[in-house]
């Protein structure tokens, strides 16, 4: 029973995600007014990009933080040095998410393919 429900939900989700791609083929032949699909897919891409970047950053920084806490627990006298190293490491890992954010900002605000659609 559970397998059937999961299968049906997965099929619906797959259809729902692939709908813009299917309809874009038909609407592209329709001329102007089909530009809305570009913006829809661009925003979808941006959301996925930031979500994945935050996901990876969360895991990476969490691992670093856990080892730093362990280090301070073992040797409370070294907590100053460990904290400094931790903050520097977190800034490094954060910058990877910032690269993804820069790409998203470029797609949303600089709109590099905007002229092609006009």
């Amino acid at each position, binding site marked *: 029973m559970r397998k059937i429900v999961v299968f049906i939900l997965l099929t619906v989700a797959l259809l729902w995600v692939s709908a813009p791609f299917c309809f874009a083929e038909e609407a592209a032949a329709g001329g102007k007014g089909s530009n809305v699909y570009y913006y829809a897919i661009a925003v979808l891409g941006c959301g996925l990009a930031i979500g994945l970047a935050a996901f990876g950053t969360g895991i990476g920084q969490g691992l670093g933080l856990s080892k730093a806490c362990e280090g301070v627990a073992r040797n409370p006298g070294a907590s100053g040095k460990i904290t400094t190293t931790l*903050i*520097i490491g977190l*800034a*490094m890992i954060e*910058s990877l998410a*910032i*690269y993804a*954010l*820069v790409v998203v*900002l470029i797609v949303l605000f600089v709109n590099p393919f905007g002229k092609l659609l006009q």
Partner: protein
Amino acid sequence: MEEKLLMDVIINPEVIPHNISYGILASVILIAVGLAIRSSIRLVPRGFQNFVEVLTEAILKLVNDNIGHKWGPQLFPFICTVFMFILLCNCMGLVPGFTAPTSNINTNAAMAVPVFLLTHYYGVRAHGIKYLYHFLGPIRSILALPLMIMMFVIEFIGHLARPLTLTVRLFGNMTAKHYILLVLAIISPWILPTAILALGVLVSVVQAFVFTLLATLYLAGAVEEAH
């Protein structure tokens, strides 16, 4: 999105963009602070001289620990200037009516590209033509020629990535802070943006330090003795 800032009163933003006029303002402030401290310098520092000495000694310790005694004093003025300038520029972005010059990618590139050029210049000055051995990897005999070629390509791409990442890291942090404050101020004013502003202070100071630390480590890697 064009905002009205304090400098618009004096200088037309169409002629001189905001990042340049605020960058010049930051330079003028730094020079004025330096001259003011120099005119009333004391052996035992007090007050504002104490604060500036704390920053300078922190960077001096960083440079001496990483670069060493031979090239440290030569490279220290550049690194300390970069740190002070970026710190002042980042903190200027927190004040209403001012904007951070480092939130424009041109200012950051204007600082990252000289760091890149300086690493190669000082590497050649310290080692001569043997500086190329840095790019060839751990094994340097004629038998390992494929490895040396592959290491050269990898190191070349890695070196090209350095000014790019320095620029984009600082730009992304400053611009993201600005946009998050903007969006949160529209959604839920007064409380949540203040918490993000506190995070913004931390980010401004840490990013200035990270830029300086990375510049120091790149320069140390270029002029190091042992290999």
